[in-house]
């Protein structure tokens, strides 16, 4: 299982801050496709998101290890 974290606009559209999803050992791209199926309202935002596994940015081809934390990172606006 992977803990998926939703922030900001993603959390608003998903309706939840985090949840466990059974996408361990899949690529980020595949995991996000599952997430988009669970939360269709995320679809229009996903194209603008970056992704982080265990708090490091990764590309879509990276594998999400089982037990990892996968975060959807919508456009940032710190500072």
């Amino acid at each position, binding site marked *: 299982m992977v803990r998926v*974290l939703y922030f900001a606009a993603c959390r608003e559209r998903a309706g939840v801050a985090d949840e466990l999803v059974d996408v361990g050992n899949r690529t980020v791209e595949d995991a996000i496709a599952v997430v988009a199926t669970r939360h269709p309202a995320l679809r229009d935002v996903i194209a603008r998101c970056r992704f*982080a596994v265990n*708090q490091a940015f990764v590309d879509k081809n990276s594998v999400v290890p089982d037990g990892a934390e996968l975060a959807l990172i919508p456009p940032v606006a710190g*500072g």
Partner: protein
Amino acid sequence: MIVRETPLSVDEAIASVKHAGAGAVVVMLGIVRDHTRKDGARVGVVKLEYEAYAEMAAKIVAQIVDESCAKFPGVRASVQHRVGSLAIGDVAVVVAASAPHRKDAFDACELIIDRLKEDAPIWKREHGDDGVTWVGMGP
């Protein structure tokens, strides 16, 4: 990096970078402004709500500070970011950088805030005259 809901401290930031070998300390404060610009028009802002993926923000900012220290040897830096609901005039971010000489302190401070704005997983929800939007999401 410090991420907290309570007001930030410029004194703390300076104290954490000041040392006998540093001839200059530069501090940048990011402050909540009373307006923003959308499609060329000035829109009033009432308040901002900041949120952070705090553990990851700390890692990213640590990497950014390391980048600055590698680029400008002798630099020490400190970053604080506030989260929660901020009013006009509130300090949202403090970046302090010290260096033996002032040019590196200025340059490091600027690099850190510029990179933080690119990569730190921190978001702000803007309450403006025209409604509430997550900054960066656009139409």
